[in-house]
């Protein structure tokens, strides 16, 4: 690396970790970090969690202290969006006309929430997504008055968390999804069914298996018309329909894009000297044999670090392999997922009770475990993390790990009994189709 300029485009989790790794790897040249939002990096996971809860004071939760950011000795270009990349001239072009030269570049532009333009009424006031601090503040204002009704369209992770937070703030909530249960697309119908129970118990008007035909209202949203012909009267709508990688600015640059920036195992893009990390990067995660984008916070942090390091130490690159980790707070239940799961994997109970919704279960196919999910069992995941670091593992190893836990914890012995007793019972070995 010549001693000139590294530019990081994106100033959230992936970008900040990349910038820190660039310095950590010994780069002492000019470092520029470009961010689309005008505030310093904040804790984005909190937007759909504690920032929507009672008791939050309205201040952004910073990702780093002012002192930590200053220690990076970076130039911060915030509130600016990259609009074009010229890999021949090695320049990044911003929306205000600024042109920044780079010798090394990290693409950490993340993703944006999907807004379906085909949906009538989607442009009405009161129809929003939840992706940024401004979005969260605006939703809080809506939920702040008594007697409000919120409709959440899309019962994925964000949609389910928003429903959970809105109920906690006292709003009435309808949660609509064309799939048979919440989180069905990610975790399948068995785990999704448990989350459906959580929502119903908390008084959410859950409408699964139903699409949305139109959002109704003249200026401001007044209702939502469903595909079954029914109408929900509502004060606000949140769209939780997934995200798309922010790659438009790379068009024509020569950086290969195919559902995100296509990277090698070292987070390097198709153009030398350009790396990518976070939601925007699609890379081969070797232990899992997967080649996809991962939209989790922990991936943004870890991959940002890997990309920053490998850019500076290009002669000695380290492949980025990770055990994807995700957590979601649904009411008082902490749902945690480790690994790479498919919604049509079988669910095998390893420990605890699904009826009590306090358990650890494996996503299994042909005797191999690729992911583990826990409800209210944060202590039980560590041994599975160790196993998954090497990639998928045999189901028998999962039971051995639970047994080993039982020998060190009295509490877990009961869980072991639950785990071994139910293994052979087909009702708990639920499979989708």
């Amino acid at each position, binding site marked *: 690396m010549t001693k000139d300029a590294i530019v990081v485009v994106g100033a959230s*989790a992936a970008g900040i*970790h990349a910038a820190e790794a660039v310095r950590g790897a010994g780069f002492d040249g000019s470092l520029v970090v470009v961010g689309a939002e005008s505030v310093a990096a904040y*804790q984005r*996971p*909190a937007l759909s*969690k*504690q920032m929507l809860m009672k008791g939050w004071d309205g201040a952004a*939760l*910073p*990702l*780093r*202290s002012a002192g*930590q950011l200053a220690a990076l000795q970076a130039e911060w270009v915030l509130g600016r969006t990259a609009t074009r990349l010229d890999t021949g001239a090695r320049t990044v072009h911003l929306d205000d006309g600024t042109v920044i030269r780079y010798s090394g570049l990290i693409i950490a532009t993340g993703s944006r929430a999907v807004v379906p333009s085909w949906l009538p009424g989607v442009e009405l006031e009161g129809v929003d997504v939840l992706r940024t601090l401004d979005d969260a503040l605006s939703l809080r204002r809506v939920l702040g008055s008594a007697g409000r009704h919120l409709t959440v369209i899309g019962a994925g992770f964000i949609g389910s968390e928003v429903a959970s937070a809105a109920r906690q703030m006292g709003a009435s909530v309808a949660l609509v999804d064309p799939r048979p249960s919440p989180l069905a697309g990610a975790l399948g119908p068995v785990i999704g069914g448990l989350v459906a129970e959580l929502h119903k118990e908390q008084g959410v008007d859950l409408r699964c298996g139903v699409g949305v035909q139109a959002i109704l209202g003249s200026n401001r949203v007044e209702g939502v018309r469903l595909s079954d012909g029914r109408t929900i009267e509502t004060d606000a709508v949140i769209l939780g329909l997934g995200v798309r990688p922010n790659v438009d600015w790379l068009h024509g640059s020569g950086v290969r894009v195919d559902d995100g920036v296509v990277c090698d195992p070292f987070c390097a893009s198709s153009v030398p000297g350009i790396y990518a990390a976070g939601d925007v990067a699609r890379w081969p995660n070797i232990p899992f044999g997967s080649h996809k984008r991962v939209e989790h*916070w*922990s991936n943004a*942090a*870890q991959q940002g*670090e890997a990309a920053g390091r490998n850019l500076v130490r290009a002669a000695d690159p380290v492949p980025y392999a990770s055990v994807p*980790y995700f*957590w979601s707070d649904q009411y008082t239940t*902490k749902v*945690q997922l*480790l690994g790479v799961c498919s919604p049509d994997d079988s669910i095998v109970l390893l420990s605890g009770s699904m009826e009590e919704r306090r358990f650890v279960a494996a996503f299994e196919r042909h005797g191999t475990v690729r992911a583990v999910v826990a409800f*209210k069992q*944060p*202590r039980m*995941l*560590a041994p599975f*993390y160790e196993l998954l670091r090497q990639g998928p593992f045999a189901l028998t190893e999962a039971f051995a790990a639970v047994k080993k836990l039982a020998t060190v914890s009295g509490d877990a012995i009961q869980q072991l009994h639950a785990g071994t007793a139910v293994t052979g019972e087909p009702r708990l070995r639920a499979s989708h189709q």
Partner: protein
Amino acid sequence: VTLNILLDTRRCSGFASCLIVAPSVFDLDEAEGKAVLLRDDCPPELLNRVTQAARDCPTGAIELVGDGG
């Protein structure tokens, strides 16, 4: 140089990723929804794990500092 582990419980939001990576160092107080330290020194064999836990913490609640630092 001895390294000490600092846990800022005002920042911690109980995401529990630290327990998974370094279970001999971190636990969770489920009632409070906050991580707790099982030890506050960081011997060399745990350095990688605690560093990873600090990096993976979405709230930046974990810090490693040298003695007196």
